[in-house]
């Protein structure tokens, strides 16, 4: 797995409660990325936000309502990202997908650290 030079970064914004095929959307997206052999994907949970639906999303520690805003950041070559886009389009019903240019400075892993 090599990644170097100019690449694309995709950021996908949606809610934690969003589902795809009865499974959390964020998990489905990460699994789809792995299926397509995308270099990496990371899910971040926001603490507050609003979006296309203009609904304020907030995490409540006391109540169990957990529709926190989520962001998935995916980085790979433009070619790989283009392959992912149509699938994402299908999966994300409500949300935002943004793309930007990034320069890969370092991409390494150690063999044998696998668990």
């Amino acid at each position, binding site marked *: 797995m090599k990644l170097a030079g100019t690449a694309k970064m995709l950021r996908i914004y949606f809610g934690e409660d969003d589902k795809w095929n009865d499974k959390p959307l964020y998990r489905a997206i990460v699994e789809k990325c792995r299926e397509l052999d995308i*270099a990496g994907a*990371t899910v971040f949970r926001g603490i507050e936000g609003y979006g296309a639906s203009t609904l304020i999303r907030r995490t409540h520690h006391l109540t169990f309502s957990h529709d926190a805003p989520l962001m998935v950041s995916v980085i790979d070559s433009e070619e790989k990202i283009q392959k992912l886009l149509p699938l994402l389009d299908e999966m994300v019903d409500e949300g935002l997908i943004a793309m930007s240019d990034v*320069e890969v400075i*370092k991409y390494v892993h*150690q063999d044998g650290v*696998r668990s």
Partner: protein
Amino acid sequence: MLKAGPAKKVTIYVGEDHQYHGQSLYSAILNFLFYRRISGATVTRGLAGFGGDHHLHTTRIEALTGDLPMKIEFIESAEKVDEVLPKLHELAGTGLIEIQDTMVVKPAETSKKKPVQEAHPSLKRESKAKMMRIFIGENDKWGGQPLYKALIESMRANDIAGVTIYQGILGYGANRRIHKDSALHLSHDRPMMLSVVDTEEKLLAYFPVLDGMVQQGLVVMSEVDIIKYTHDFAATERRKEARP
């Protein structure tokens, strides 16, 4: 690496209770010296003393024990001392800094040689800047402490304009291993992202240090426009006063 021959010995006197950005001042100074690769430094706590304000700080009466004198000492070459001195001035605040000529008879030996890192002071702000994102794991370690913490401290010591750590809830990367936060297990290898903003020049100059610290992960860079970069010093002072 300190060699035998003439050198400078720097002693900084501060109070134990002095604070710098929410941590104790003496440890902030020690961290700064450590990440600027000063050959060695020692902190000693005094039993009693007084300084510029002529308050006697003592352990005599247990109830009044407080703000004992702390002494941070290090020995370095004259050039290296000149390099870190401006920042030490800022850090020491009301404390005293003393420099004396000294002679290193026998330098300390280390088990392995470390490359000497160049320091890059002077922070420039301009409208065009770069954002560097570093993706690592929460369990990654450097020098016995979490890598993300070590990175933040090393960035602060290298005068990088700012950095924020984000903790992910799920992810995978170069080693194809899924990192996730599960409440049931106590395994906490969450994905971490550091977002660093500074000029391209500063980030490229810092990269060799970063490169030596990050053993696995991804580092990407992108263009950003700086819209605002300020600090409300008055508010910080207010917060300090409000604190008991």
